[in-house]
């Protein structure tokens, strides 16, 4: 039984230049319902959300709220009619205080009443157990806290419709649990929630309904019980899924051999606040770092690559000592690093796909040997074909590509340097299921060809599918290593949580 429909979007069309982003999309949301909006990258989820919140104006179609057609031309309009949004990227002002961020832009009156505002904010922060003080400058809080503040703001808006656009990608499990509790409370109050996420487990944990979009078109609206996980994925992809559990088998045996160590590190430590750690990786091996968000996974690989300032330790490359002080040293030693934060650390937004692909190789060649245009086109076309990158041409600016395709370009950039050791830090974050599988397959293929790969992912099943050895981290410290039969979900959880595993080892 569904409650009264609070929001209805009918026949929405939106075009950007020649790209048809939305073609006749429908969406219905009932009171007190948590509704997942699913689809691959580029399916039109974000565009739909942005149309609804007035960031984009739609070309055609109606938005009906509580039975009345509304026209929304700006985020303010959306707020006024009771639609509030939490975006994946934090859309708050880091220079203002926490309280100001919660209240700015939505209060009437001329005067700024600091006292009552701070009191109100404190109350909400306390009720949501957010560890921040109202008068603190937002920029001094951690990213997760900032995200919680954004949610607190949305919650406090007395909204009828709450949109959560991938709010969980920067939260750890406890924070996600807290968020879900909050969502259920709001549901009780009759708020309709639109939830966009790439984590399938989360969908099945909290949602009631699912709407699937594909290629900017409406596919269907389903009750959660009618759409089991495997069916959801195939609906999103529009084709039956390859058997996921199977992709590993052929690669696995290669590792068992006595391969030489490609890289060895002792007591490595950087200024990013990790404890010194030892590490090694063999030729043709795929290993992974696992642990909760903030446990130091990324910081470890960053220190190997010299991305943070290395404070101490020794690194052996093929048994010979090397000094890695900056990324360029690591690159010269045949190490490649695909960073976690694609937007800030990976892409060079305004440059073309071609320039983005050849960038690392160009740097390796040095200042005085520029890659000619013809050569660059050759490389770019080769990898665009190889990785099936969807781009209008090699001259298209990379920022206009979808997330998954941007990631492929970055991957191409590093593959072009023919590294012997490839570090992939969350290569599958925020990209669609199809590309995720492609990337996992590629990783195993590369390893099969003898490349050493470190693969980091927040999704444990991905790691289990690809890695043959897992380094477990907790509180910025390596606390264990799992191989062979120990590679199970429960064992990993146990180690992360700090059970008897490591003690038993010693």
């Amino acid at each position: 039984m569904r409650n009264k429909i609070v929001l209805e979007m009918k026949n929405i069309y939106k075009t950007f230049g020649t790209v048809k982003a939305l073609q006749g999309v429908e969406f219905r949301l009932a009171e007190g319902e948590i509704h997942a909006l699913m689809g691959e990258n580029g399916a039109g989820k974000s565009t739909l959300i942005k149309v609804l919140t007035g960031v984009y104006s739609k070309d055609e179609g109606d938005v009906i709220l509580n039975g009345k057609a509304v026209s929304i031309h700006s985020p303010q309009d959306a707020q006024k009619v009771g639609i509030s949004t939490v975006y994946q990227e934090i859309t708050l002002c880091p220079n203002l205080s926490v309280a100001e961020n919660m209240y700015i832009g939505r209060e009437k009156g001329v005067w700024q009443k600091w006292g009552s505002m701070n009191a109100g904010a404190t109350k909400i922060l306390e009720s949501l157990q957010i560890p921040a003080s109202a008068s603190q400058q937002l920029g001094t809080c951690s990213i997760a806290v900032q995200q919680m503040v954004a949610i607190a703001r949305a919650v406090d808006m007395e909204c009828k419709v709450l949109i959560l656009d991938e709010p969980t990608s920067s939260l750890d499990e406890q924070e996600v649990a807290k968020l879900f509790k909050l969502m259920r409370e709001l549901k009780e109050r009759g708020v309709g929630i639109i939830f966009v996420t790439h984590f399938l487990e989360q969908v099945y944990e909290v949602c009631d309904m699912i709407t699937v979009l594909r290629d900017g078109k409406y596919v269907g609206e389903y009750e959660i019980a009618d759409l089991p996980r495997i069916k959801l994925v195939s609906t999103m992809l529009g084709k039956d899924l390859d058997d996921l559990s199977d992709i590993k088998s052929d690669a696995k045996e290669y590792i068992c051999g006595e391969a030489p160590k490609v890289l060895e590190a002792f007591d490595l430590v950087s200024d990013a606040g990790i404890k010194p750690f030892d590490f090694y990786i063999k030729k043709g091996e795929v290993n992974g770092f696992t642990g909760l968000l903030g446990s130091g996974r990324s910081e470890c690989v960053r220190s190997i690559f010299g991305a943070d300032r290395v404070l101490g330790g020794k690194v052996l490359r093929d048994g010979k000592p090397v000094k890695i002080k900056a990324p360029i040293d690591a690159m010269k030693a045949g190490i490649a690093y695909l960073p976690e934060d694609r937007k800030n650390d990976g892409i060079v937004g305004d440059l073309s796909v071609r320039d983005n692909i050849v960038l690392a190789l160009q740097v390796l060649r040095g200042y005085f040997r520029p890659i000619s245009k013809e050569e660059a086109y050759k490389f770019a076309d080769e990898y665009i074909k190889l990785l099936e990158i969807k781009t209008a041409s090699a001259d298209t600016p990379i920022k206009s590509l979808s997330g998954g395709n941007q990631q492929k370009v970055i991957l191409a950039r590093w593959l072009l340097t023919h590294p012997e050791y490839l570090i992939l830090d969350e290569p599958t974050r925020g990209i669609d299921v199809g590309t995720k599988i492609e990337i996992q397959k590629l990783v195993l293929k590369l390893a099969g060809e003898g490349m050493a790969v470190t693969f980091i992912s927040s999704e444990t099943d991905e790691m289990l599918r690809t890695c043959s050895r897992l380094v477990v981290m907790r509180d910025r410290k390596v606390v264990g290593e799992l191989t062979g039969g120990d590679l199970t979900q429960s064992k990993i959880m146990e180690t992360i949580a700090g059970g008897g595993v490591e003690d038993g080892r010693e």
Partner: protein
Amino acid sequence: MEENKTPEINPEEKKVVQAPSKPAKSLDWKAIFGKMLHSQMLIPVVAMLALLIFNLVNDPSFFAIKYGPNSVGDNVFTGNLITIFDKGAELAILAIGMTLVTAACGGQDISVGATIAIAGSAILRVVRGSEISPDTLQNPLILGFLVGCLAVIACGAFNGILVAYFKIQPMVATLILFTAGRSIAAWINQNQLPNIKDPTFGYYGGFIPGVPIATPIIISIICFIVIALVLRFTTLGLYAQSVGINEQSSRLNGINPTLIKFITFVILGICVAVCGLIKVSRISTINYSSVAKDIEMDAILAVALGGNALGGGKFSIKASVLGAYVIQLLTTTLYTKKVNSAAISAYKAIVVIILVVISAPVVRELFAKLKVKLSKKMARAGKKVA
């Protein structure tokens, strides 16, 4: 700006009228046009054509180029077009360095006028030796130029360190030398006004005997060739853009952003030294508070007119240089119209505003919409007829 005029008139004058250039092939006219419309060069090219047409209609003699003896009796080319390239040389040279700094640092150097004063002062200090106004060069000019170069490269390095290492915004960082530069220039010569009477000193801002083209034009062409070669045979262009667009990711690709920013400031420093040499050579002396005054503003304007984003990233030096000549063409045009030199800036402002408004994305979008509407109307009208 009006220093060093050569008002000689020659009986055997030649008139050169520019023939309007035509597209080579009419076949891909549409493709060329479409490419042009989205090119960075569009605005400066259109502006230059508009100004040239204005002059052609208004007074065709604007384009006259004369060949005859100047005040010292050498046969040289003169005329408005030559003046533009002569007087615009410093601006065009500065535009090169300014474009690079803008691209890599996402900001502009506003100290160039002041550092030109420093370069000029240093050059004078060396060549004058111990006298104030010597009749001959006391030290070789090349030594003076090298010292001047060193002085402004040091200034560039100072700016570069503040910008690249201390992460201060370029405009703010260069505000320091903007305030202090002219004082330092005066201090170099103890606030005296050296005057070099040696005629060879004037070659670089005037004419070299036997060469009919003003030396600044030759110097600027050499600068263009050098920078073209640098961009062709090194990866500086790609790195500067990359750093300007996304510094963090450039660093993770092995580029050293601090070094790149620093290099762009040093290159700008060399451009400044060349300008300093031309400036002091033009008048054989220096006026600390007025030499190269406001040239930084013109240089930034040239970069902006060239369609380069002032926030850094992709750049085109060609477009900037063209922008610089547009500014000079405008100035020269106004001079020939007998506009008061102090009032010229008001007209300049109007032209600049018109240009940037036309190239504003919002306005372009408006035009595009209008075009679509118009073509729809046309189509409808066509249907009716049919």
